């Protein structure tokens, strides 16, 4: 019997498959249609200090091998959320990870504290990388010092595992990861969506109400695999790899690059049975190779980064 159990900075999971934030609501929405026992944890939709109406429409655009979204963190705000939403989530089959978004260091700390205090919440993800709320939301993940400050402050509010979600829209994601690790993060989520846009050539207008959006789906998978690979070389805390994972082969790439778990997002919109398929596939893969645990393959493809060969003997 192979083991798919894993541990994300203190968050113990029966399966190394999380449902990515914003793609799976609270889990209740999918529950009537999907068996959820193959899900390691559900990362809830991000919540902010104050209620947010979200972005104007359209909020979704299909693209080749993926989609652009710009939802804009529509949510009822932390007060309402704690009073009216979280009570409904007690007694779920899999752990729930609360997700915090904010516009100041204070926001993050305040919402993190309120969320983490609730028994329904097993861990907290700090979404410092939402690309869809003007420029403010993502700023935190694009500035290593600011990212560290958010994490350090949030860290003081809870002992529950803190997962920090990083942005791919930076020059050096590993540098941000290092700062976030030293500030006290227990794990990293790598990556959030990649910024993008689409234009309607009939109307000459951007196709998203928010003008810009976040690209997800298989189109961004190679970007995400490299980000996990680079971050894994720079930090020792576990990584939740995410970005366009649809099949067991996709998931394996992330484990081999250095992820201790993976998160599924856009693939749920193709087939909500994706987590069960991936869990079954992982088990088969390990069994066929006589490997006892998924943990044994984490980072096994990491051979470093190549230097280009220089031409020799032609010094002119």
């Amino acid at each position, binding site marked *: 019997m192979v083991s798919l159990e894993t541990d994300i900075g203190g968050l113990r999971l029966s399966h190394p498959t999380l449902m990515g934030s914003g793609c799976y609501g609270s889990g209740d929405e999918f529950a009537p249609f999907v068996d959820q026992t193959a899900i390691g944890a559900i990362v809830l939709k991000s919540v902010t200090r104050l209620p947010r*109406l979200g972005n104007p429409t359209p909020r979704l655009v299909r693209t080749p091998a993926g989609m652009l979204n710009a939802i804009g963190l529509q949510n009822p705000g932390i007060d309402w959320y704690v009073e009216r939403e979280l009570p409904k989530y007690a007694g779920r089959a899999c752990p729930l990870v609360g997700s915090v978004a904010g516009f100041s260091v204070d926001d993050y700390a305040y919402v993190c504290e309120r969320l983490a205090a609730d028994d329904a919440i097993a861990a907290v993800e700090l979404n410092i990388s939402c690309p869809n709320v003007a420029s403010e939301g993502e700023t935190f993940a694009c500035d290593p010092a600011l990212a560290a400050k958010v994490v350090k402050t949030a860290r003081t509010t809870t002992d529950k595992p803190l997962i920090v979600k990083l942005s791919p829209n930076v020059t050096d994601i590993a540098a941000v990861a290092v700062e976030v690790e030293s500030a006290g993060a227990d794990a990293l989520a790598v990556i959030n969506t990649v910024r993008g846009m689409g234009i309607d050539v009939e109307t000459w207008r951007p196709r998203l109400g928010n003008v810009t959006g976040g690209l997800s789906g298989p189109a961004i998978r190679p970007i995400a695999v490299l980000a996990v690979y680079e971050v894994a070389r720079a930090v020792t805390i576990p990584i939740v790899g995410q970005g366009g994972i649809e099949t067991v082969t996709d998931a394996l790439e992330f484990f081999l690059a250095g992820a201790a778990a993976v998160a599924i997002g856009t693939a749920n919109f193709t087939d909500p049975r994706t987590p069960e398929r991936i869990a079954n596939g992982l088990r088969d893969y390990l069994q066929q190779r006589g490997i006892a645990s998924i943990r044994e393959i984490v980072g096994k493809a990491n051979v470093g980064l190549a230097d280009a060969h220089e031409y020799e003997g032609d010094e002119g």
Partner: protein
Amino acid sequence: MPAIEYDSRVHVTRVADRRELAPGVILLGLEAPELVRATRPGQFVMAIPPAGESAATALGIYEAEGTRASLLFFITGKRTHELAELRVGEPLGLIGPLGNGFDLSSVPQRAAIVAGGVGIASVLLAAQALVRSGASVELLYGARTSELLVDAERFGEAGCELVLATDDGSRGRHGFVTELLGERPAPDLILACGPTPMLRAVGAIAAELGVPAQLSLEETFACGVGGCWGCVVPLARSSAQAPSFPPASRGGSDVVFARVCKEGPVFRSDELQW
């Protein structure tokens, strides 16, 4: 030890019948007893593409009787093309029925159903239910050409009076189906499904006539079950369909964004703030 078998609750249906009603218009009959039992008029399913290479597709449930349900759709892109390639006997995964459907709790004397193009796929069950409840039902049905006025006769058999329109005048009225609505004797209830400009026009005419209208909206869905908040439409906060949200968000707006897939796809026209 055998691998754990997960118990998926996706309906795995079988294609029982496949007809091309017009070039690029497919009617897929499915053996789907559980779906039929649960379906109410105006609901939809998310059809999971068999090759798994594109996102699931929202399709109105056209027929639902006995053990058979059917889906009527136009081939418009990769996803519907994949579905159109299905052959009799092949499996098709569905989640649903989804959405709220039409509110037929109070029976009108005279109902008008306005359908534009592929909108016809979402109104047959409502037409049948209204006729059964004793209402006299008029189907105002418009399409680009006579060829694309698919399955109109089916509504005649169901007991509806047919009033047709085509953009090119090849059958019925030469013009938009909405022009017909303004000219006919006013009904007590209007149901409509079709392209957004048509629905807006229906809403405006209904307001002028003072007749309640229920509009079945079309939007791009990602999840189809209310999980992603991608398919929203502005709705009056006072609407019974408004999602539960704090009473006074910043700015004190009277509008909330409701999910077309979850709170809809059918909304009362006078509550939409679009």
